[in-house]
């Protein structure tokens, strides 16, 4: 995937002069993510309104003091729907990243450490996964698993297995050549033990930063599939679905589509910034 290609081309180390200015964006990014997690954990603490039940006579109000982001066609508060929708997107993204991380790391670790035919076979499978555009691969999996939040998350996760595997393999190959790994083998360490104690921990750093990047991409992918109607069914306040529903009132009620989209963009930007900070400067 392109995200991997962009990820592996490293940026030059940042000068001290820019450090202070960049820290502001990093703090802001963490703040955004923490707020989103808080929304997911305790949505009721952030809004007095309901995420699914509307108030009669309150339909399609433009943003004002009572409803900061306006109300939708059956009088539901848009901000409340975004807040209550947080859990869907975050949970889906976590599931997707876990699927991709565990599957990809395992494949990459085996391919990079065992080598030989096993390596060739695994990398061919990775090639096949990479040869199909992400969206089409996700749709192929959804067509089998059926619709729903978890199924969409799994589909998104499977699509990222290939990128994780490729990155993990290159890291493992880099670490395996290190002196301390040779020393561990030389002092009689068993293959699996050396792998677990030395190779795995030392190759995970970059992969974890990549996982943070994939978290944002997963939120983007999940909202796209939600928009197409394959995610959670309608009364659920899922961000992609909110935008899809708001489409019908495009002429008058711009707030129905604009705000859920901005929420997605902010969270994706934040995760990208955090991922960047997690990478070791080269």
């Amino acid at each position: 995937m392109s995200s991997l290609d962009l990820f592996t081309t490293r940026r030059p180390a940042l000068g001290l002069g820019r450090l202070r200015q960049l820290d502001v964006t990093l703090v802001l990014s963490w703040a955004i993510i923490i707020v989103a997690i808080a929304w997911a954990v305790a949505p009721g603490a952030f809004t007095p309104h309901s995420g699914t039940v509307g108030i009669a006579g309150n339909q399609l109000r433009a943003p004002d003091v009572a409803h900061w982001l306006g109300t939708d066609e059956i009088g539901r508060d848009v901000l409340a729907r975004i807040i209550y929708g947080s859990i869907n997107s975050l949970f889906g993204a976590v599931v997707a990243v876990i699927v991709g991380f565990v599957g990809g790391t395992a494949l990459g670790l085996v391919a990079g450490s065992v080598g030989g035919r096993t390596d060739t076979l695994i990398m061919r499978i990775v090639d096949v996964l990479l040869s199909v555009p992400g969206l089409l691969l996700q749709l192929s999996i959804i067509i089998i698993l059926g619709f729903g939040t978890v199924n969409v998350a799994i589909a998104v996760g499977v699509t990222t297995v290939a990128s994780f595997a490729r990155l993990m393999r290159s890291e493992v190959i880099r670490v395996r050549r290190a002196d301390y790994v040779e020393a561990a083998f030389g002092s009689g360490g068993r293959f699996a033990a050396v792998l677990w104690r030395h190779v795995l921990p030392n190759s995970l750093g970059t992969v974890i930063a990549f996982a943070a990047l994939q978290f944002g991409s997963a939120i983007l992918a999940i909202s796209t599939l939600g928009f197409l109607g394959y995610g959670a069914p309608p009364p659920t306040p899922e961000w992609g679905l909110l935008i899809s529903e708001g489409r019908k009132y495009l002429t008058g009620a711009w707030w129905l589509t604009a705000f859920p989209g901005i929420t997605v963009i902010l969270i994706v930007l934040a995760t990208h910034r955090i991922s960047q900070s997690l990478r070791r400067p080269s």
Partner: protein
Amino acid sequence: MTRLLVSRIGQAAIVLLLAFTASFLLLQALPGDAILIKYQNPEMGLTPEQIAEIRVLYGADAPIWVQYGNTLWNFLQGSFGYSVQAGVPVNPLLATNLPPTLRLASLGLVVAVIIAGALAFAATLAPFAWLRNLLQSLPALMISVPVFWLGIMLIQIFSFRLRLVPIINPSEFQALILPVVTLSLPIAAPLAQILIRSLDEVQTQPFVSVARAKGASRAWVLWRHVLRNALLPVLTIAGVLFGELLAGAVVTETVFGINGLGRITEQAVSNQDTAVLQAIVILAAVGFVLINLLVDLVAPLIDPRLNTPIGASA
């Protein structure tokens, strides 16, 4: 060279065969039988015997490996089976829906390349540091925008607010403006990012300093010396961009209600019409593999250093 060529083509063929096998196993061998879904509908009033007959007609009763062989043979001959839901062969379905998507995708690519090139040059040449930083951070923002949301916002702003692009009875050209922009922005973003980085890297090379010392202007050096060297990293993501372009087109068509590959993909998923989806997936994989093969063959023409064996030059 010939040996390299043969081995690359062989590898490409293996990837495609594996892709076909995987998609066959996933989409045809697993449950979610499109024939049963359509014909078991009680409104049709078919007896189990009649359904069995239909299954024989579609070849769904044969052992799995026979089905695999038949499907592979048909695909190799360019025949993609039957859409059970629409009751027609997949081929004419693709033939009518592929051209609009290809037109949208190719226009989107052209616009994306122009945007990315302009952005990369501006971000490298802009007069002030803060302006360069601002321009360099634009692609990161563009990558974070959901394609479908971008399309909706563009309709909102340009059609409803400013009334610049009519949505009722637009001309063919007008109807394409917003979809092409929607599709091109997310494609332009990674392109611009890679181009900016690669321009940055090439600019520090000694030959650039030499050209500058000889009195060439910055823009001229960029155009004549740097660009050609900076293009190679861009070519390596051409295959990925093709995939993104296709996926982007699917979403864009849904947003703008354009008839094309996107619409039949969406319908195929909703109706579990696996034959249609499999055909599209395989076509996408073929496109990806062919483009990467082409890039491998063209890269040495752009950079002759790639022709020398590894290790001979450093």
